[in-house]
């Protein structure tokens, strides 16, 4: 399977995958039930589910003969990490700007 290394934002960049998360936020669903909401082939649905699974957004559990998808915290945590990353990024950049401006004033 390809696309196993997508970051959290790449995972949610796809509208179909966002819609899947939206559907799953109401209740856990079987892969078959999820697939009914999409006008795409079953392998295409499976590919998206696999990406959500690899991104830590859902867990998959076999119950009887059905495979149930359930939302999982991990992927969402990674989105939060991303915001935190930018928070630090800007602090670092502003400090650098401050240092440059201060050095300039001294000259």
């Amino acid at each position, binding site marked *: 399977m390809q696309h196993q290394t997508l*970051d959290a*934002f*790449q995972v*949610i*960049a796809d509208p179909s995958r*966002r819609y899947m*998360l*939206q559907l*799953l*936020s*109401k*209740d*856990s669903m079987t892969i078959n039930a999820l697939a009914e909401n999409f006008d795409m082939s079953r392998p295409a649905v499976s590919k998206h589910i696999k990406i959500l699974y690899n991104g830590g957004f859902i867990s998959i*559990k076999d*119950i*009887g003969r059905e495979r*149930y998808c*359930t*939302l999982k915290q991990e992927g*969402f945590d990674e*989105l*939060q990490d*991303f*915001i*935190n*990353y*930018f*928070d630090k*990024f*800007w*602090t670092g*950049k*502003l400090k*650098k*700007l*401050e240092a*440059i*401006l201060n050095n300039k*004033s001294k000259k």
Partner: protein
Amino acid sequence: MQKEIKKTWYFPQSPEEVWEYLTNPELIELWLAKTDFKPIAGNRFQFTNSCDGGDRKPHFTFCKVLEIVPCKLLSYSWQKGVSEDAITLDSVVTWTLTGKDGGTQLHLQHNGFYLLEDVMAHTNGWNGCLNKIIALINTASHATSNA
């Protein structure tokens, strides 16, 4: 969940001087990243390697000047992705400059993480749902084990 970034920074320099560092590509490169920025509303530009996220791939940030008021306000879109056709992060950066105590109060707002907000808007309260789901699974597993 935090959805936006806000920072306020004070510089003893004048707004005109700070503005130069926000809008002159040569000066921007000193503290932020290499860029082909032009201070014209609607102008598309890029930052290169402005955000190195651990891997060694070159990173590009695709931007467009949304609003510009000399020495007061600068706002641009901040999109990331492998190419302009494959944007995975769509957000907005806004700089506001205010003269204060002979220097400049610089305010940064980075928000509008659109795809993220879309996901959060639709999955908010999913923790509550999760409990319901866990209960459901437990019930189902119980039923299965009894079968």
